[in-house]
């Protein structure tokens, strides 16, 4: 019986404890977190293909040789990187004749050019191709300076400075080259 009373007393004590801690108000702080990934996005270009058209003079002193080809521009509107220290890079591959037959003596089957990506940082990205008259040579890459802030801008891509190796006659037919514009974080040298 004595034992039984002890148990009941303990139960009462436990039951009384919450009443002793009650108060008028309370608060709790809950943290809300999120994250934003680093993004670079290039806007949809005004043209997907840059067509230089007919590239040689058809009469006069330079008949058959490179004509005065005007600069060609494409805009990538609304391009952005949402973080600091990004770089725009341009990679250019010279125009070469679709017909892979080696060019005869006196002819070239390649047209070099300069590709410039502008309006991103203080220094534009510039790449000038340097293939030989047979179109042999690697693609050329050039990077602009580092953009130290997140940026939203219309990036311009301009082709200019067309040059035929040796100023030779160009074989007839279609010609194809390419330019790739890349927005990316500044390359960090390996430690």
């Amino acid at each position, binding site marked *: 019986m004595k034992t039984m009373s002890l148990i009941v007393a303990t139960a009462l004590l436990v039951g009384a404890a919450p009443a002793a801690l009650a108060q008028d108000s309370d608060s709790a702080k809950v943290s809300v977190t999120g994250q934003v990934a680093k993004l670079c996005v290039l806007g949809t270009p005004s043209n997907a293909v840059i067509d*230089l058209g007919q590239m*040689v003079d058809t009469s006069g002193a330079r008949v058959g040789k490179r004509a005065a080809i005007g600069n060609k521009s494409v805009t990538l509107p609304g391009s952005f990187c949402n973080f600091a220290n990004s770089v725009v890079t341009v990679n250019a591959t010279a125009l070469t004749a679709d017909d892979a037959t080696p060019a005869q003596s006196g002819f070239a089957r390649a047209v070099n050019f300069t590709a410039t990506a502008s309006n991103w940082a203080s220094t534009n990205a510039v790449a000038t191709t340097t293939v030989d008259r047979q179109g042999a040579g690697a693609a050329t890459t050039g990077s602009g300076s580092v953009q130290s802030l997140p940026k939203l801008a219309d990036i311009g891509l301009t082709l200019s400075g067309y040059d035929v190796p040796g100023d030779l006659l160009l074989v007839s037919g279609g010609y*194809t080259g*390419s330019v790739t514009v890349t927005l990316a974080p500044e390359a960090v040298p390996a430690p």
Partner: protein
Amino acid sequence: MIRKSSLALALALLGSTAAQAQTETAASNTASRAFQVTGNVPVICAGGALSGGDSTFALGVLVNTTTGLLRTDLSAPDKVLTGAFCSALSTISVAATRMTAQNVTTAAPAGFSNSVDFTATASGWTTTPASVNTAASTNPAATQSRTTPFSGNITVGLSNFATTGGTTLRPVADTSYLGSVTVTLTAAN
């Protein structure tokens, strides 16, 4: 049975979420866009510039002044077309008209002729030169083809002079005998 269905639904939702997440991560800290650059060069043939000061083969006096027959040593310096080219495969054709007396318009009397035939040859463009003989009824060698673009000089020469009608005939006297040679480059598409 119901529990099994629920599990399947849960897995399906999970799959969908994963796929969505993958799509969203397609945009990254690097963006690249490639542009094709195109251009074209039409087929062009140019005959080049004729060297030698003028465009006339001047043969001088055509006959042996002793016999009255056509000289057997007639010749004229070759003409060269420099800087000729075709930017595609091509054919070269040479055409010629015999030299005829320009002032004597009546038919030549018996024993005489009022014209002189010759062979014109255009070489340097094809392995086999294009040649034409004004006395021949057909000239299959007058057109030659090459299967590559070419840039070079074309040498045009005259040879095989012969009195029309036979070597025993004598050319009638005239201050001007005139013929012509035409070289044509044609791109073959």
